[in-house]
């Protein structure tokens, strides 16, 4: 207790020097934490976007369909299954889709696309694509009109079409015959992932079903949204037990890179913080060596009157840790405010956005940092303090009390 008191008061003996060290630690942490939060925010958005646009949390397929998108490999009795699944604990919403590869053709161009046949009502409960259509660009199947299609801005540009333009979709139907139909563009969306945008078009289930001659009850995909995405693998294996004939995959199986993103960000943040703390550590060592040099006489006196090496060591270590902690505290408070603020207003990097979107990240990102990160960083700072104090403390112990006393 007394050592703690001395250590704490010792920090404030040289106010300017301590202030400089505290400022250095604080700015290092602000930089590190803010950058981490930024990267983390981008990664999380990427993950959440992927759930909302591409994968949902769990998908069911006929195992054979998953192999080569064969129109005939369907899920049977879809309606009953949807009903049953929606009753499973933790399931928030569920919908089914028809999926088929097609050629999209206009007067100008032909392009290969994946046509997704959806039920507008339940689709909107599971997926958020409808939010990616701004008011000037139509809507996501609000009207009951037949043979409507929603495509992306990127595809519209390629095909040189606008709202109300017609697109001819050609595909093999259920019986293997080539068939096609004209669809009218009623909505144009834009997500952060341009390659995906170009290859997906959306039509209503009933329209597509008619063209493909698929009977009621059959579908290609069931998409499930959960209350908590971390439960996906658990619930997915439950579903596997209920429908052993189907292939049930959670988001990490559908898009394995999603779990890599989070892990990768963790590693990046770790490396980043280690570099910053390492640099700060050297600064702290230097400061503490100066402190020891200045207090040679005092330390000699303390040893002379009976303060043993363990206590001297502890006192210096405590002083170092406290100094580092004050810096960390200041830095964490500032970081918390910055991250809160920018987490609300977002950081816009639209000048770089085109490049970012071609790899699936948004132009505006919202930094976030989980509370446990602050605890983690505090522990790391304490460790840095401990390590940084070792060398100065050893130097202090090498002092010879009688010599420092003599030079009084």
């Amino acid at each position: 207790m007394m050592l703690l008191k001395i250590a704490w008061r010792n920090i404030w003996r040289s106010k300017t020097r301590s202030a400089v060290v505290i400022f250095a630690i604080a700015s290092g942490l602000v930089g590190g934490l803010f950058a981490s939060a930024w990267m983390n925010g981008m990664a999380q958005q990427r993950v959440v976007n992927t759930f909302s646009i591409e994968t949902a949390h769990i998908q069911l397929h006929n195992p054979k369909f998953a192999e080569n998108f064969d129109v005939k490999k369907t899920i049977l009795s879809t309606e009953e299954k949807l009903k049953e699944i929606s009753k499973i604990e933790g399931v928030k919403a569920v919908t089914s889709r028809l999926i088929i590869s097609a050629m999209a053709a206009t007067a100008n161009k032909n392009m290969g696309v994946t046509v997704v046949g959806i039920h507008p009502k339940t689709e909107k409960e599971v997926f958020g694509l409808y939010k990616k259509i701004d008011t000037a660009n139509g809507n996501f199947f609000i009207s009951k009109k037949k043979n409507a299609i929603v495509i992306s801005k990127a595809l519209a540009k390629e095909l040189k079409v606008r709202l109300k333009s017609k697109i001819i979709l050609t595909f093999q139907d259920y019986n293997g015959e080539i068939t096609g139909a004209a669809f009218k563009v009623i909505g144009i969306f834009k997500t952060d992932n341009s390659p995906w945008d170009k290859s997906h078009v959306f039509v209503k289930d009933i329209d597509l079903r008619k063209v493909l001659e698929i009977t009621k009850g059959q579908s290609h995909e069931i998409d499930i949204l959960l209350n908590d995405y971390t439960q996906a693998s658990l619930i997915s294996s439950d579903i596997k037990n209920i429908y052993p004939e189907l292939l049930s995959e959670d988001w990490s199986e559908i898009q394995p890179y999603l779990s890599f993103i989070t892990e990768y960000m963790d590693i990046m943040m770790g490396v980043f913080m280690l570099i910053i703390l390492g640099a700060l550590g050297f600064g702290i060592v230097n400061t503490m060596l100066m402190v020891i040099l200045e207090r040679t006489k005092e330390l000699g006196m303390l040893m002379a009157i009976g303060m043993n090496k363990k206590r001297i060591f502890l006192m210096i270590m405590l002083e170092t840790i406290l100094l580092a902690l004050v810096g960390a505290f200041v830095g964490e408070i500032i970081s918390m405010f910055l991250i809160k603020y920018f987490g609300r207003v977002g950081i816009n990097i639209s000048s770089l956005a085109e490049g970012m979107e071609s790899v699936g990240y948004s132009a505006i990102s919202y930094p976030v940092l989980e509370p446990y990160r602050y605890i983690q960083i505090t522990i790391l700072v304490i460790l840095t303090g401990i390590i940084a104090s070792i060398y100065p403390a050893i130097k202090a112990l090498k002092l010879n009390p009688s010599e420092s006393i003599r030079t009084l």
Partner: protein
Amino acid sequence: MSVIQVKNLTKIYSETEVPVHAVNGIDISFDKGEFAAIVGPSGSGKTTLLNMIGGLEHPTSGSVLVNGKDISELSSSKLIDFRLYNIGFVFQAYNLIPVLTAKENVEFIMQLQNWDKTKMDKRTIGILESVGLGDRINSKPNQLSGGQQQRVAVARALASKPQFILADEPTANLDSKSTNQLLEIMEKLNKEENITFIFSTHDQRVVDKARRVITIDDGKVVSDIVKKV
């Protein structure tokens, strides 16, 4: 039995070009309750002798027995503990921990010895009052005069009731008024607490107060006078 017995004590500094015989075969002993001054010209070996008695320096040869125990055989870390529990020190300057108040400084050694809080409080206040600083217990060293700082140092040295107190030129930085005050306090405490005081000095007024005066020159005792009471 004597508290301190110094036998044929020698200290030779040989790192220098010509080896220096700072202490050159001193035999001397101190009884409990003595109030003894070590005097001698500059460089005569007073500090070296006190440092060896206090276990701050290892003798080249000879021994220092404290209550019959030879401290020159102790390892340096054992010596720290020995000093903590047996010896009170007062130096010429830099005695106090600048970030602690007078009271905290006096408590310091008792804290290291893990004294009970109420006992320690009582002792600290009592001793600060007897050095005349009862009203300055919460002052930091830089708020005290040199003489007051030395009185706090004496209080700290005494508070934990050591076997004896070593003071190397405790009054060297003080004016005559403070010197007198400090000596009176040391004398009073020496009587009240029956604690052995050994101090070195250049100052004739300090010598006058001592009940025993040991004069050394060139590392040797040249006279050892016990005054009659």
